[in-house]
């Protein structure tokens, strides 16, 4: 199986461990990721909060590169995914805008490639059962709260995500890896990452509440599928909260017993080492 891969800016800096783990895990599973040639920023929140045309043109440039390369796109960052997926939706459903975008970028959209979040690419396209079949080191004893955040599920008419109020694909994956996904009700609450730099006090309250609910649900760790969520949950918390936050790719990496995982966990701001040692999963 082959995808074009759009890492996005965060995976080159604040979320390096997500990039490393995503690439190792895909290699381990036999999935080929072709990095989008000369990809550019999707514009993120700042573009759609200030200039909506910019918020369509920036992702469209990347969609056109993927179309040229000829493979469906896998996107690890939920914010990038949202921008790419929304623009793809506009290109498919709004003829007037499609013409405007095509004309601005000098390219014809043919709709031949699909946009997937990396979580969907792995669990739905490649298949959770196929991942489970390769597990060498089941994550026995790990109780995890699967945190989906906003933009992977909403707006549902664009993402087409199953069960947007109580999504289950990450829970299914975590269970298939041998851990226990705890039921909880904050799965799709917002991490407030777009307020982090500007209103740090607000972000701390929002993040502490999410982490508090995860602990109350009996989880020893939170699992995310977004660099902005993961960074907010580590960086914006009150300093006395110690629950670690993993990328879902890191958990797959442990279960596949990939030795490269040592290089991922040292990058965390909240050390997952003690928990992994307790469960004999440190490797």
């Amino acid at each position, binding site marked *: 199986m082959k995808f074009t891969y759009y890492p996005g800016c965060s995976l080159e800096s604040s979320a390096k461990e997500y990039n490393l783990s995503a690439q190792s895990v895909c290699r381990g599973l036999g999935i080929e990721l072709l990095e989008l040639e000369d990809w550019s920023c999707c514009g993120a929140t*700042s573009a759609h909060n200030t200039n909506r045309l910019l918020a369509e043109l920036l992702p469209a440039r990347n969609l056109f590169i993927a179309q040229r390369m000829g493979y469906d796109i896998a996107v690890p960052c939920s914010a990038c995914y949202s921008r790419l997926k929304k623009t793809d939706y506009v290109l498919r459903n709004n003829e007037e805008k499609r013409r405007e975008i095509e004309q601005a*970028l000098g390219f014809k959209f043919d709709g031949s490639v699909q946009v997937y979040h990396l979580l969907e690419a792995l669990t739905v396209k490649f298949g959770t059962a196929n991942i489970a079949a390769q597990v060498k080191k089941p994550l026995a004893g790990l109780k995890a709260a699967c945190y989906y955040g906003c933009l992977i599920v909403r*707006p549902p008419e664009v993402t087409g995500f199953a069960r947007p109020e109580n999504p289950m694909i990450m829970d299914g994956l975590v269970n298939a890896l041998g851990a226990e996904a705890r039921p909880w009700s904050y799965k799709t609450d*917002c991490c407030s990452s777009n307020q982090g730099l500007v209103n*740090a006090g607000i972000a701390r309250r929002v993040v502490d509440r999410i982490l508090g609910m995860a602990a109350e649900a009996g989880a020893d760790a939170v699992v995310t599928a977004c660099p902005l969520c993961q960074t907010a949950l580590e960086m914006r918390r009150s300093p006395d909260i110690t629950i670690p936050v993993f990328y879902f790719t890191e958990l797959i990496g442990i279960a596949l017993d990939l030795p490269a995982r040592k290089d991922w966990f040292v990058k965390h701001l909240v050390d997952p080492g003690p928990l992994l040692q307790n469960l004999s999963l440190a490797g």
Partner: protein
Amino acid sequence: MSAAAECTTLSGLNGFAREVGEKSGQSIQLCYQCQKCAAGCPMGEFTDYYPNQILRLIQFGRKEEVLKSKGIWLCFSCETCGARCPNDINIAEVMDTLREMALAEKVPPGIKNAPIFHQAFLNSVKNRGRVHETLMMMNYKLKSGDLFSDLDVGLKMFQKGKLPILSRSIKNKGEVKKIFHRASGK
């Protein structure tokens, strides 16, 4: 009957409501104040107006209060409101439209540093094709005057190699610059 209740189409609305409706592509007039949006809105405890109140102010043509509100800049863009609205109003899209209008009309922002952050972010994209997170944050700090927050966690990220000084620009920077010119109408 209130002005809002009488309207069933955008054309029956006041000028401001019509403009917001047309620019956002959303049926502002359909909001009947069920408050489902407000119930799940994560900025609820911090904002001056809940999303349903913003909608009501728009219906009543209270442009100034809307465009200078804190709410339009505090909004997390989480899309919870629109996903739950029984009238399929995509409120996040309305919020984007309102911020764009506030900037175009140079209304002083209810949260002073929010547009400064967006500007720092987009300048970085415009110059390099990708965001240079380290430079972008330094730039934001200088422009906002908020120099001393996050220093401890910033240092930790730097030590972990998460705020690299060197990072790649893209090859076709000109293509991205062109996109910026096009979008700003220049």
